[in-house]
């Protein structure tokens, strides 16, 4: 339903009212913006020595600052990429397991899924770290810093469970005729799952999976609070401690995150629209699944 249905095509009176409302709203926003601007100005937050290292290429620190930020962004992207690959792999196994196991095998699996779904990601990340220290495990043979793996494993624990649920919903949303046809032509249940159900489930779940990537990308920044791994936000925080301009650096960091995630959200919307036109014969597959749709995840 488009919102325009909520009210009539405006007549002269309604147009006047809406104009007055617009003017009041615009004036209110302008006043708020101006007050914010005044405050920033008074506090000297527009001073060139706070902004130039970020914006002015001729500033002596410009190159170094952006090299550092690029390193941070790279670290964020690497962690997110590793986490999504691991989560997809483990999540698929868990999701298929939940669908195909008998009742006895399913109980511990479901319990585990529900348990890890209820844990805050920052707790799982820190828990991996605590676990490693407790057992004095040596993970230095893994490529990259140790911090990367605390983050990746912590993210994987949470997200593989979420992806398992997304996939399960995807398989369940398929018409039952799909599995029945597979069994009828003599495929085993496992072959039916792998050759018929999973490929379709992946396709219908593509938008939700992309949205989950946005969530993972955002969650990489959690580790900045723990200080275990220098990704984009922590890198920005370190830079701002040197340059003494937290507002300006955080503004840039936020902008980078928003641009990337907005791009991904648009991609999810695009995929959803494309899939919905291609699967016109079997509508309402994606909308039947919670979490599908563009960037719903927190």
């Amino acid at each position: 339903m488009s919102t325009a249905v909520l009210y009539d095509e405006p007549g002269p009176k309604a147009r006047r009212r809406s104009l007055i409302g617009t003017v009041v709203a615009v004036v209110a926003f302008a006043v708020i913006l101006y007050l914010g601007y005044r405050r920033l100005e008074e506090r000297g937050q527009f001073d060139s020595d706070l902004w130039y290292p970020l914006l002015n290429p001729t500033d002596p620190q410009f190159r170094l600052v952006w090299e550092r930020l690029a390193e941070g962004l790279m670290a964020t992207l690497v962690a997110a990429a590793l986490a999504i690959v691991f989560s997809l792999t483990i999540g698929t196994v868990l999701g298929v397991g939940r669908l195909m196991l008998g009742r006895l095998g399913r109980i511990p699996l479901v319990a585990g899924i529900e348990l890890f779904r209820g844990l805050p990601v920052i707790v799982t990340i820190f828990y991996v770290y605590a676990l490693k220290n407790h057992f004095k495990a040596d993970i230095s043979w893994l490529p990259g810093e140790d911090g990367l793996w605390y983050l990746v494993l912590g993210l994987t624990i949470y997200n593989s469970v979420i992806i398992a649920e997304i996939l399960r919903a995807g398989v369940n949303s398929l018409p039952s005729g799909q599995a029945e046809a597979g069994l009828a032509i003599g495929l085993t249940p496992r072959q039916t799952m792998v050759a018929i159900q999973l490929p379709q489930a992946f396709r219908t779940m593509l938008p939700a999976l992309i949205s989950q990537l946005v969530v993972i990308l955002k969650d990489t920044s959690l580790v900045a609070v723990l200080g275990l791994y220098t990704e984009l936000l922590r890198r920005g925080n370190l830079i701002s401690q040197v340059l003494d301009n937290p507002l300006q650096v955080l503004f840039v960091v936020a902008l980078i995150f928003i641009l990337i995630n907005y791009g991904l959200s648009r991609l999810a919307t695009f995929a959803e629209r494309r899939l919905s036109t291609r699967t016109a014969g079997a509508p309402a597959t994606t909308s039947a699944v919670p979490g599908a749709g563009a960037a719903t995840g927190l």
Partner: protein
Amino acid sequence: MDAVYDNLDLFWSGFLRSLGICLWGMAGSLVLGTLIAAFRVSPIPALRWFGTAWVTLIRNCPLTVVLFMFAFGLPELGINVSYYLFGVSALVLYTSAFVCEAIRSGINSVQLGQAEAARAIGLTFGQTLGQVILPQALRSSLPPLGSVIIAMFKNSALVGAFGVGGDLWGVGNQLTSAQGYDALPVFTGVAIGYLCITLPAAALLATVERKVAIAR
């Protein structure tokens, strides 16, 4: 697990403080999110743009960045309040965008004919929204709204980890760094504490979902 048994009273007080963060966050984000949702469907274009910009910007920005902006950015503007208030405000601001979208998805799920019928019998925009659309929309936005709130409960751990002090995470920190307990059992206790918030909330949501489910 002695670290947990010996300090149960400490964990209990931490649990209550964490629960407090969750409840303040829930109250604040529901109010703010509903307001933004009203903006997003309002007849006034400027308000709609504001709502859209709010949701797009905040939804794509990590909560951690919002939190850092509050805690490190606002003091630069001479705004100094406690970390608790900074943390809860960041949580409310961030969650409001998701609450708005959950409510809006509910409004969008109400069939076109409902609004048309309301307008046909001469109800105003306010009446249409308040007496016809929202009562139906709130029912169907309850499941997504519930997931948003549960996710917010989990996100509140970040506020604790940031250093509010006295909450579950703060207790864990205090026991490991000041009193030298091993981090593994202590944070197992912390994890159980958070599960005591999220699991009952999820169960409650599932029950309520079944109760309000309507066939369309």
